[in-house]
Each structure stands twice: as structure tokens, then as C-alpha cells.
């Protein structure tokens, strides 16, 4: 059934229940040289990416002592099982509150990812605020994500803003 009455809020009980609670951890497959190379090629397209991402002989001469991954490299891409975080919109949209957009993020980086690393992540819905914008009723959700490697070293922490409207 459809209705022309806009919702009074986009905040759901699922979000209230999830607020502040770390979700279950996810462990990545080992980071591979091939995935790093492909990431670098895609993000530098159509130009050649820096050698630190694909030339082991060169990378050995740097302070890293070998290949590293670009700092935005995502080892969690292509999971077998897919999880949908609390409050996530469907980007293609089907009405008020179902459309989504990336509002921004701040990443703080620790040690770089290298081939063979296994990354563990956890995330939580931290907070939100809701207001009228040019898009109508709009919900801004703050999400915190933490990545650590197999040595329990912090790879990065992220605070991101997801937008629903």
C-alpha cells in the first residue's frame, strides 16, 4: 500500500536498538598482491599507478620494505555473506527515507596494509540527527569503523556520515 503522507521521522527502532553498540567483527581474507595491483590500476586509471603498489623490487627500497596497499584499499570487498548495517538505505530509492547518499568521512591511519595481512573490522552506529533540507526530511547518521591487522595494530579508524532522504 502506498501513502502520500510523508513520515514524521526516518529513525527506526532498529537504529535505536543499535545505537552505540559494536556490531559483530568481520575478518577479511588475506590481502593479496593481485588485489592491491588491481585497486591501484583502477584508482589511477587511465595512468600508471605508483610503483610502491606493484613493483616489489622498488618497494623494498622504501621505508616500508615491500609492497603496501593504497590507504583506501578495501579488503572486505566481495564478501560471500553480505550484511546490511542498521539504518542503511537502498540507494536506488523508492520514496522518502529509502534514498541514500555518502555524506563524508574522516579516516585516521595507523600502519599500512601489506600483502598477507588479515584485517578485522568492527563498526557501530554512533549517533544521528534529522532535519528538513532541500531534499525534504533528511537523516544524517554517524558511523564509526575500526580496522586492525593480525598483530592487533590499528590500520585505520573512520567516522562517516550516511545520508537518508
Amino acid at each position, binding site marked *: 500500500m502506498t501513502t502520500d503522507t510523508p513520515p514524521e521521522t526516518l529513525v527506526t527502532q532498529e537504529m535505536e536498538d543499535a545505537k552505540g553498540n559494536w556490531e559483530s567483527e568481520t575478518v577479511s581474507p588475506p590481502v593479496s598482491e593481485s588485489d592491491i595491483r588491481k585497486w591501484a590500476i583502477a*584508482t589511477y586509471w587511465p595512468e600508471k599507478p*605508483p610503483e610502491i603498489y606493484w613493483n616489489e623490487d622498488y618497494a623494498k627500497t622504501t*621505508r616500508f620494505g615491500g609492497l603496501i596497499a593504497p590507504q583506501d584499499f*578495501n579488503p572486505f570487498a566481495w*564478501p560471500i555473506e553480505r550484511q546490511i548495517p542498521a539504518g542503511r538505505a537502498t540507494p536506488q*530509492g523508492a520514496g522518502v527515507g529509502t534514498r541514500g547518499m555518502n*555524506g563524508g*568521512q574522516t*579516516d585516521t591511519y595507523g600502519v599500512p596494509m601489506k600483502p598477507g595481512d588479515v584485517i578485522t573490522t568492527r563498526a557501530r552506529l554512533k549517533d544521528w540527527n534529522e532535519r528538513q533540507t532541500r531534499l525534504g526530511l533528511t537523516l544524517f547518521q554517524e558511523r564509526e569503523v575500526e580496522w586492525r591487522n593480525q598483530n592487533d595494530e590499528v590500520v585505520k579508524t573512520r567516522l562517516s556520515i550516511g545520508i537518508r532522504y
Partner: protein
Amino acid sequence: MSYNISFEDIEVGQEIDTWSRTTDFMNWNRFAAVNDEFVFIHMDDEAGRAALNEQGAFGMGNLRYTYLLNMLRDWAGDEAEIRELGVQYRGINQKDDVLTCKGTVTDKKVENGENLVYLDIKVVNEADDNTCPGHAIVVLPSKVTA
């Protein structure tokens, strides 16, 4: 070893080397492939319009973030460390936009033995609209300790 720039070479107010790409489905699809980011609004004009972008499909915010990292890495070199990067996605990356990443040094200081450089950064389109303002902190090597 790529030793592009040292802490002593940096002056507040200095603009760093820009980094630019013309963006269309060739860039977006490659990024979608590696980041597993196959979302209709980035692939299909009808879905883009349904999401209230009249021109149709539009680019990923995450790709602009990547471009900013690429600018910082290419400028600072492989002996530098990008410590922090924060952005806001304020504008849409339309198909065939020419995106240019820019950065300006706002501060430099030594803390806990680290040579920190602070920058305002942004991604502008061909109309010079700032689609993605942000900030970055980069740790640079020193000529003194090199």
C-alpha cells in the same frame, strides 16, 4: 626511494601539485569492480534521476576520496605518511566532469618527533565548484634526520 619533498621545504600558504581526472563510466566501473560498489545510482541514468539527480547516474564519493589520497601520495612521496584525511561530499560528480584535487598548506609543526603538515584540500569540477572540501595531515621526512 621516492623522496619528493621534505618538511623544511614546506611553507604555510603553499599550494601543492594538483591531481586531475576526467570521470565517466570507465573510471566509475573500474572503481565499482575493485570496491564491490555496484550501486544503481552509479550505473544507471534512470536510477540516478530517481535519486533526484536530473542528469542521471553520478560518481561515487569514495572515488573522489581516493583521488585526494592519490594527490597527497604523489606530492609527498613514498617516504611520507598520510596520517588523516577528512572530507564532506557536497556536490555531485556528474558524468564527464573534469575533477581536480587541490591542496593548500595551513600549518606545520613538530609534535612528538613527527613533522606534521596540515592542509586544506578539495575536489573541484570544471566550473570550479568545490564538490568535496576537506582536510589532511601528512607526516613528512626531514632533511635533518634523513
